[in-house]
């Protein structure tokens, strides 16, 4: 019974992170700001949902698949975010007006 309650708690925390990440994806002014907010929040939210499912199902086949997917998402989401921001900077997207300095300029 306690693992069901803990699983629901982790799922609701993950859904809150998902919602605020998507709100940042809509509201922020720049490509880099949107990428930073959305990638961090949505990765943590999806990992929260998967960890809640792992706590709900225990050590069964569905639980191990959830753990595998969580490990893979944690490993690949920062890599793809870094590749996208590098490609956006090389393709000439400007920073927003309130930015102070650009360290990557070469």
């Amino acid at each position, binding site marked *: 019974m306690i693992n069901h309650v803990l699983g629901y708690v982790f*799922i*609701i925390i*993950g*859904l809150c992170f*998902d*919602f605020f*990440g*998507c*709100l940042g*994806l*809509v509201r922020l002014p720049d*490509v880099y700001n*949107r*990428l930073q907010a*959305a*990638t961090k929040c*949505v*990765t943590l*939210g*999806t990992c929260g*949902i*998967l960890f809640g*499912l792992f706590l*709900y199902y225990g050590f069964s*086949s*569905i639980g191990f*698949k*959830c753990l*595998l*997917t969580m490990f*893979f*998402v944690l490993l*690949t*989401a920062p*890599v*793809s*975010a870094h*590749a*996208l921001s*590098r*490609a*956006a900077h*090389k*393709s000439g*997207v400007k920073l927003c007006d309130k930015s102070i300095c650009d360290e990557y300029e070469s």
Partner: protein
Amino acid sequence: MKVIKYIVFLCIFVCLIILNLVIKMDLLLRLLNTLIICIILCLYRIAAGPTAADRAVGVDILGVLVVGSCAFLTLITKKDFFIDIAVAWALQSFIGTIALAKYLEGRHLDD
């Protein structure tokens, strides 16, 4: 453009109020409504992004959200093939995002 933006946001909040406060349904389906609203916000960013990099960011975030919602559908429907779809979608989304980044950078795909 600004009128379309306000109409989209008004529709999203009306849907949120109707789905979560008026209609009576289970707790799990109400939690799934939050994920559907997140996916609608992502689709707005894909439709209205000013540059191509914005749309690539939207597609990347949409892939991670679909992985989460497929895993959540496992809990609702008690069918265990949705988690297999989630594993496969995570792999495909990573490779697709890397290919989009290489295309934006101006290089060939086999570089």
